[in-house]
């Protein structure tokens, strides 16, 4: 399985390449990118340098133009596709059918990957994208159980990539407007969820409160680990229950344990989430996953998850917790 790693900056890209990525994915510095965060991402010159650095070391470079093109800014998305084609990147990762259509017509030689934001969770949906845009690969949303991944893979017209590690989106990607409901900005319309400019921290009555656009997301006691107020990881009241994680706890997806099962489903690539993360985070996660995948490849039958790998990843996880997410039925 190919190890696909995130880079939100040139140092993170070098960290991913140097620590064993098979492919690195990046995005541009605008709202064509679903990780459109201040101070991150690549301008034209940096993207060119990134490509050279990766290519010289035998690593592929994918570029994500994975938001939905907004009607008044269509040229931005079209120009971004032109740039990816000009770079001769190894693949363009896209979600919007308008963007994919443009890329497929203008640059038939450019490999197209369907982004997780495209939200294709079954093989009939994949056929739609394959027939129309000749996509080569699709990234599956983090909503399928392992048997469902196997089923999709067995009938899929294209190679599949699945999420292996990182922040856990609870909702089907590309199908969540909760962030724009509270702030006006969502992954689909602005390339960001729970954007930092709407976040406020306040100390009140000995507790730390986190707010998103004025609404209370969580309250933390002095001894609690206060996480970023991603709105689906907050504590709310529902029914008779008070102040609980209605959607999900702050936790990270970690599928190191599932490497043999994922390989058996036939998926071609595993993806590390985290273009918003630091170079040292990327280096540690990538190097741990490289060791694990190499170990599996050497002796698949003898593969066992090593304690030091798990501890390394645990320490890098949200809330220092990890989960198998939707791959495991009980999580659902």
């Amino acid at each position, binding site marked *: 399985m190919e190890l696909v790693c995130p880079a939100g900056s040139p140092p993170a890209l070098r960290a991913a390449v140097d620590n064993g990525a098979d492919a690195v994915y990046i995005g541009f510095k605008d709202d064509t990118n679903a990780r459109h965060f201040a101070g991150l991402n690549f301008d034209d010159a940096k993207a060119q340098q990134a490509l050279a650095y990766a290519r010289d070391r035998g690593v592929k470079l994918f570029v994500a133009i994975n938001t*939905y093109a907004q009607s008044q800014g269509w040229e931005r998305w079209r120009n971004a596709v032109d740039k990816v084609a000009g770079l001769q990147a190894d693949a363009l990762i896209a979600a919007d059918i*308008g963007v994919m259509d*443009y890329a497929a017509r203008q640059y038939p030689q450019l490999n197209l990957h369907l982004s997780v934001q495209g939200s294709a969770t*079954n093989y009939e949906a994949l056929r739609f994208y394959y027939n129309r845009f000749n996509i080569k690969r699709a990234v599956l949303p983090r909503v399928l159980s392992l048997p469902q991944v196997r089923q999709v893979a067995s009938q899929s017209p294209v190679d599949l990539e699945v999420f292996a590690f990182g922040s856990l989106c609870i909702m*089907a990607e590309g199908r969540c407007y909760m962030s724009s*409901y509270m702030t006006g900005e969502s992954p689909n319309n602005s390339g960001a969820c729970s954007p930092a400019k709407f976040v406020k921290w306040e100390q009140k009555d000995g507790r730390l409160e986190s707010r998103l656009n004025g609404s209370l997301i969580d309250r933390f006691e002095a001894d609690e680990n206060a996480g970023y107020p991603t709105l689906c990881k907050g504590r709310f009241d*529902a029914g008779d229950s008070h102040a609980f994680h*209605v959607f999900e706890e702050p936790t990270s997806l970690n599928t190191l344990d599932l490497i043999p099962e994922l390989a058996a489903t036939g998926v071609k690539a595993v993806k590390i989430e985290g273009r918003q993360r630091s170079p040292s985070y990327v280096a540690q996660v990538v190097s741990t996953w490289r060791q694990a995948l190499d170990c599996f490849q050497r002796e698949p039958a003898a593969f066992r998850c090593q304690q030091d790998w798990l501890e390394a990843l645990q320490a890098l996880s949200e809330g220092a917790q990890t989960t198998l997410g939707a791959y495991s039925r009980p999580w659902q």
Partner: protein
Amino acid sequence: MKISLGPLPYFWPKDMVVQFYSQVAAAPVDIVYLGETVCSKRREMNLRDWLDIADSLLDAGKEVALSTLALIEAESELKSLRAICKAANANERLSVEANDMAAAHLMSEAGRPFIAGPYLNIYNAPALEIMRQAGAKRWTPPVEISRHALEGILGSLASPIETELFAYGHLPLALSARCFTARSEGLPKDDCRFVCKKYPQGIPTRSQEGETLFNLNGIQTQSGKCYHLLNQWRDLQHAGVNVIRLSPESPDTLRVAESLALALKQEQDKVLPYQLNHSNGYWSRIPGMELAAGPQETPHLS
């Protein structure tokens, strides 16, 4: 301007569903969307039951479409989807609302026109043209669409296409593998005991300060507030909207349809007074949970 009734988002007992749609037959709505769009485990109504309701609504002069499951994960769900498409393709008078690209693909392969639902993420004119080439005869933009964005799309089309807008009801904001209704009751999804039947309007979810943020409806998360753009129907019309969609909240939603039909007929601006649980911000490019006034109107909060 036509009025449509969107698919029933909640899990109601079968007799309540049948009773509701018998009233719909007499209500002033032009288009009715039928079927389960949220959770494939909800089996009070099977396809035959929906088709029976479709027949009686067609006889009452309604346009009827079968609305498909929005998040399709299992082979069994694809099988149900194929059965829905087959049933619609066997009846000239029935159409399909595609809420996933799988449905768009199947209808397109069958060479049949379909309706592109609000879950398909059509945000620009090139994307809408592709759906039209695939067979879309009408579309509903994503719920977060603004007037500004919709005008940009419709203004760039080669020729007009019938456009429907979600204008009343709890907005479908997200879909998940996890069932939040079952989770809130401490149950796993595989043993959910159909607890969502206990909540015919979902479970309001509030911040620890009591602000209603969301509404849990099984694997779907809805807006905490009820979207209400009806008092801006002229504005919708100017922007190019041809069909106003009401989402069933309760049997009372049919009274909302009556108020809207009357206002359209008599060309009155005010359809329904605003209440504290109403919002309509998306249309005005502000957060969806906020309430923006119509062009000549200040919100009256009661």
